[in-house]
């Protein structure tokens, strides 16, 4: 047999040489991946930093942008408002979600599945669609709830006004509580019930055990969920745009929109957005410490039957409370959106004469860009999901199998966008690719690339977990039997990963179809997506067509989730939390 030694050049230095032997044949792929990641992540973020420090005309170094961004009381007020908003939303979510999570995972409350499914529904509902629903429900004059109060009590006007600071806190909280709910439930379910039994046997009763053992053990998870909630709340664009702007209440994200209206001052926006980025990175690190480090409840039970706390009659009270939350976040909004979508005028309520399909006809066939926006949303989301997954898969495989050096850096870059709020990412993309020579502003390309970057961490975490779950010996077996790396990927890796990759694709596709905060600063006349369209219609006061569009969006999301379930079963939902 002929010698088939792999060519090796240079000095014999064991560690490096052993690595280089792997590198050589595929160095081209490695360089390509690095370039792509630099384009998607490194360049936009460094452009963001750079433009905040440059004079837009001369390119000279300056701090004038920071002076402009923080020089006016109105701008500083927006920062303070965002902080108050974030804290209020988080507090409201904690008092709502923690008892619900406890009831679902630790007690004999009835209807647990229903509460779980509706909470998942709240998680799936785009917040801006919820905001639209609550404008219909609690608008100061014609809102359903106000109309009902007027009808019942004969009062002159209703008591609810969604266009207010409490209204904004409420509307964000009812769609953010699932984060804390999911984190807390997970912690309570994995916690060993022996921890509680140890307290019981020493004489502590149910309530004492819950207060002094169970909840403190779940505290890191609760705080972790609270941090995510806070970050989501301060980075949210849709709800503040629909509620806070009419209420003349300025927050960071609406202030950024102002910097982007004519004349666009991207350098001031960049300077203004940096604290948001810094706070996000910092809190994310804290959250990782809480969840991953010593604070996490790592002692898990042996499984088997665990005793649930018997609440007696109280269980119906707890169930009722949970259902109130679910009703406010999912059931009522769904009813009003559906009513408005099929109504001639939403304010006149349910009767046969009010039924019509005109809103759908208007959206799908008459409006000049609404039908286009639906196609755009689906196409961009599909393209971004495919692109992100292909990239994530290639990098995850290289990192997991240690095929090339500096895998850790590639891995870090893939996960980095997770700590970048969508609105920050959009400004980075604008700063990097709106000017010449790219001139991508308003194109489908920039939308797809921004979506790809925004959801790359989801794709990467899933691809990485899928490959980690694949025993490398399955590929070693191919190679020792005479197949190469490519044969192993084609015949073993690809068929085995098919299921989880479909799941990962859908997990990127779903948020990409409803994405708003990245899109709002990057879209052009022909590249509107459904979220942008919906916001525009609501802004014009075309609430019925907006509801029809929202209902279509919701139908798309539910259909995709259904497909995911059909293909993967419960596993699909489990991975959502990663």
């Amino acid at each position, binding site marked *: *047999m002929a*010698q*088939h*030694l*792999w*060519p*090796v050049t240079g000095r*014999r230095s*064991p*560690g490096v*040489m*052993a690595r280089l*032997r792997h590198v050589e044949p595929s160095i081209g792929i490695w360089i390509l991946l690095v370039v792509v990641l630099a384009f998607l992540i490194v360049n936009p973020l460094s452009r963001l930093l750079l433009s905040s420090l440059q004079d837009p005309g001369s390119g000279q170094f300056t701090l004038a942008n920071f002076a402009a961004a923080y020089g006016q009381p109105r701008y500083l007020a927006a920062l303070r408002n965002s902080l108050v908003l974030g804290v209020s939303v988080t507090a409201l979510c904690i008092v709502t979600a923690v008892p619900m999570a406890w009831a679902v995972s630790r007690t004999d409350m009835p209807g647990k599945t229903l509460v779980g499914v509706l909470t998942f529904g709240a998680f799936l509902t785009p917040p801006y669609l919820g905001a639209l629903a609550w404008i219909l429900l609690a608008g100061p004059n014609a809102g359903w709830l106000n109309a009902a109060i007027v009808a019942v009590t004969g009062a002159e006007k209703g008591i609810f006004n969604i266009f207010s600071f409490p209204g904004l806190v409420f509307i964000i909280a009812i769609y953010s509580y699932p984060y804390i709910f999911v984190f807390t439930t997970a912690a309570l379910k994995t916690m060993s019930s022996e921890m509680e039994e140890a307290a019981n046997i020493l004489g502590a009763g149910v309530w004492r055990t819950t207060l002094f053992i169970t909840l403190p053990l779940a505290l890191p998870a609760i705080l972790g969920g609270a941090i995510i909630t806070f970050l989501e709340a301060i980075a949210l664009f849709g709800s503040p745009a629909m509620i806070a702007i009419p209420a003349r209440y300025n927050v960071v994200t609406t202030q950024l929109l102002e910097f982007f209206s004519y004349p666009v001052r991207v350098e001031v926006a960049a300077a203004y957005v940096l604290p948001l980025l810094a706070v996000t990175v910092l809190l994310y690190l804290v959250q990782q410490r809480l969840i991953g480090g010593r604070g996490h409840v790592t002692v898990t039970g042996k499984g088997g039957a665990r005793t649930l706390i018997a609440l007696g009659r109280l269980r119906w009270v707890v169930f009722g409370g949970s259902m109130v939350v679910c009703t406010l976040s999912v059931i009522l909004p769904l009813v009003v959106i559906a009513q408005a979508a099929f109504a001639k005028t939403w304010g006149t309520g349910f009767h046969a004469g009010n039924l019509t399909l005109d809103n759908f006809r208007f959206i799908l066939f008459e409006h000049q860009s609404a039908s286009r926006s639906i196609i755009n949303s689906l196409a961009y989301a599909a393209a971004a999901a495919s692109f992100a997954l292909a990239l994530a898969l290639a990098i995850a495989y290289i990192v997991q199998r240690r095929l090339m050096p500096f895998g850790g850096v590639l891995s870090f870059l893939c996960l980095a966008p997770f700590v970048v709020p969508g609105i920050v990412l959009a400004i980075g993309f604008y700063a990097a690719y709106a000017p010449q020579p790219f001139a991508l502003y308003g194109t489908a390309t920039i939308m797809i690339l921004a979506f790809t970057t925004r959801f790359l961490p989801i794709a990467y975490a899933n691809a990485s977990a899928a490959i980690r779950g694949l*025993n490398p*010996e*399955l590929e*070693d*077996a*191919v*190679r*020792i*039997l*005479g*197949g*190469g790396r490519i*044969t192993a990927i084609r*015949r*073993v890796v690809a*068929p*085995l990963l098919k299921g989880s990759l479909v799941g990962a694709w859908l997990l990127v596709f779903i948020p990409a179809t409803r994405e708003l905060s990245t899109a709002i600063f990057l879209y052009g006349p022909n590249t509107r997506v459904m979220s942008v369209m919906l916001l525009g219609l609501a802004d014009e006061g075309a609430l019925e067509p907006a509801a029809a569009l929202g209902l279509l969006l919701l139908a798309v999301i539910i259909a995709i989730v259904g497909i995911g379930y059909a293909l993967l079963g419960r596993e699909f939902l489990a991975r959502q939390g990663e």
Partner: protein
Amino acid sequence: MMPEPTTPDAIRLALHGVGCRFGKVTAVDDVTLELRAGEFVSLLGPSGCGKTTTLRMIAGFIHPTAGTIAMDGEVLSSPSGSQPPQRRNMSMIFQSYAIWPHMTVAQNVAFGVKLRGLNAATVKQKVERILDIVRLRHLAERYPATLSGGQQQRVALARAMVVEPRVLLLDEPLSNLDASLREEMRFEIRRLHDEFRMTSIYVTHDQAEAMVTSHRIAVMNHGRVEQVGTPYAIYNNPKTRFVAGFIGRTNLLEGKAQGRVIRFDGFAADTTLFAFAAELDGDATLSVRPQSIGLAGAAPAPVAGRRMWSIEGTVTQRAYLGEFWDYIVAPLGGNMPLRVSAPPAVDFDVGARVWMSIDPTQVVHVT
């Protein structure tokens, strides 16, 4: 199956001075080992001793940083380059079995044969033959998830053997099986080897597995081969303290030899009892297996032409294990208790005065 070369001493696989370092950690250090065609050799050692790294270097998954690995005289691996696993004409049985879950039993087994470009009829015939041999023919169309651990193990064996590898590598293949199945599979592996005489290397940390299956055992520790030999030689003539202690239980007696006497803590021996008397000078360690020590209630009477080493002591602990008694006996006037295995009939209470008698030919000098 392909006939093995007829020359009895053809060297199939040769490792010379093989080493492997990961950064500052030396996983394998200066391993030299030769296998004749048809030989079955075990690499035996505790976890982390470098045995799996050695096996994976032979397979080509890991590249040595020193030394060479050659098959039939051709160098496969050296620090300057390695042939990839797929060109080595070996096969391997993995710890996890690595049965591809998306292929049926027959598809798993056929995979390697198909890669060798054989026609469909030959592939089918070979697959059926090997499935008959491992007694899995009736499960050919089943998916692996529906098989028991033992059956999956047989699929792995069939898949590895059907390609008629030049060398068969086995990486702790029985570690995922329960105890009774493990015992059965040891003999199954031995049976298959006796049938095909494939040159095999078997990695394990279980001495019983190694002793049942192997012609020779290479005991590894801290990345080095401590001793290579037949199971009988390894057990009865361990060269080092580690080998003596790792293969079976033993008493390691540390003493000081001076002139014709070797002194231990509380007892002594005449060095001329031992065949290795000439080696004894200064500090020395002797290994005595617990079952090589006889127990009696009175000083043993001398037997003509048979010199015994006799030590007087007190029983300090005992446990009855059914097949034998496990005694701890402390020699008088010292602090070096010995472990003694005695037949069930030899029954002494704790505190009893006993005489231990040791056949000097059963004592081994270890380094």
